[in-house]
């Protein structure tokens, strides 16, 4: 099965906003993709609790696997982006 390996770029790791955006994208793509850290148990990319359970922080190398290579590439691109970078803008919209 095709695989991609990428280091998590977001400052807060795969947690909070980055985790939510990642899982939302996996849900939107709608094809089975699994994610794991090293040789540990893999979890579905569309599971928020599964993704949180990876405990991935900034710099953690994760492996994605799935049949749909375009979906893998889309998710890799997301993980390679610092999803916290535009948080300030998000805060400015608060309330």
């Amino acid at each position, binding site marked *: 099965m095709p695989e991609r390996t990428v280091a998590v770029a977001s400052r807060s790791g795969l947690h909070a906003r980055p985790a939510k955006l990642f899982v939302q994208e996996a849900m939107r793509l709608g094809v089975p993709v699994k994610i794991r850290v090293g040789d540990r148990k893999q979890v579905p990319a569309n599971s*928020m609790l599964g993704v949180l359970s990876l405990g991935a922080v900034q710099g953690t190398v994760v492996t994605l696997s799935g049949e749909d290579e375009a979906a893998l590439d889309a998710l890799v691109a997301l993980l390679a982006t610092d999803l916290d970078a535009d948080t300030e803008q998000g805060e400015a919209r608060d309330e």
Partner: protein
Amino acid sequence: MSEPPPAEPPGSLLGIGVSPGHTAGPVARMAAPPELPARRPVVDPPAEVKAVGAALEAVAAELERRAGAAASAEAVAILEAQAMMAADPMLREEAERLASEGLDAAHALDAAFAAHREQLVALGGYFGERAADLDDLRNRAVAAVLGLPMPGIPSPGHPFVLVAADLSPADTVTLGPEVLAIVTEQGGPTSHTAILARARGVPAIVACPGAAALADGDPVAVDGDTGRVDTGIREAFAQEIRVRHGLERARLAASRGPGRTADGHPVPLLLNVGSAADLRDGAGEGVGLFRTEFLFLDRRTPPSLDEQVAAYAAVFERSPKVVVRTLDAGTDKPLPFLGLPPEPNPALGLRGLRVDRVRPAVLDTQLAAIAQAAGDCEVWVMAPMVATWQEARDFAERARAHGLTRVGAMVEIPAAALLADLLLEYVDFLSVGTNDLGQYTFAADRMHPGLADLLDPGQPALLRLVADCARAGRDAGKPVGVCGEAAGDPRLAPVLAGLGVTSLSMSAASVPAVRESLAGVTFEECRVLAEQALSAGFRERHDRRWKPRPSGANAVEA
């Protein structure tokens, strides 16, 4: 401050008014978490599997609905993330498997949530903090499957007076515009509920044990000025109060201008902010407390110099004057990157400036970033939790070495208030944080539900410490401000001004009422009020709820 009600209501309850305003509406109670019943023998496992799925779907749908109606981006983000967890495929699979193996639906859900909770707790740090979200979801799912009302903030579909035992920070962030007023059985003047209600301008009463007797739909009037809840009121009466409240809010919202007494003695009204987002409506006379913690939350590594410069500059650009507080974290507010081991008594441990004893680089980077970001803004910088003149001197030297010229100390520890004159030999100003100063003066935990009376900033012992600081400031010719919740209390503002406090810093929502309160008295009257407050306590003279009550009494008046 409100006019007397037109007719005598049938009954009333007393608590502590923590956010001013007088309004009325039907009660909606926050439902308590459901109790898990004893395990039930299962005859039809597929039916239990179906019930599990239906409960999780109902929870996710309810959270999505609330996210769609939420007032702030922060609330939307929290609710959406919770909805995603409720709809989680792994969670559902696990719960359905347990149900298919013979557990009843409620216990299958409970066990599936528990397994995931354990995983997150084992990861620790900010992953572990999500355990509280799972607890909330578990309570909702179990309630759904048992046919009980979902716990959490009610959503009756019309404006309501929220009544709860107490509110957690997670509850408060999702409060919508339908909440007319808040009444809690527990909590004190510095609790989350009080701070949030003031920030939103929602009338609130805490420490009102009698509220336990209120039921959904009961019509009540809530007076956040006096701490009084009138029960059994008629709808016409409620409507009249609501209309008056709306007019009053509109009138206050239209008020402008600097803070001053009736005879023109200036008392600048400054803002407490957490980031540039809090300045969207302008900075008025300036920022009196810029909390810098937001940059450091959820971090494994400290923010870089450049990142800090950008974040501080975003605030400095929007205000003519900003008083920045350096990082106020520690074992009381743990930050992952500090790597501090837990302490048995965090409030009395390594917090505020004391973190500098073990992580000195953090403060130096921050001071450098503040200096670089200053631009045209008049930037003052102060350290939290100063206890000795040596700490004040060392902090001042460090800050000045970075080119900062206006350096101050927070007064939150009685030791610092007692040495105010000595501190002012080394620093340029003092800022009194009345929340912590109250907690340490009275040996009363800020969040303790049963000690609200001790934490009231109108207590004479606390006011005497404030007076000492103000006197030292006058003698030294240096400013002494107040930036705790006391500063945003319209009834206390004239007292603080009369004590000689030179500025008041508060959340933006508190400014209009404080401005009006000061404008209604001369400086001489402020001095008289201050004198009385120092001897007898402010509340006892001005507010009957501060008469000693028999312990545990509900203070119900017929």
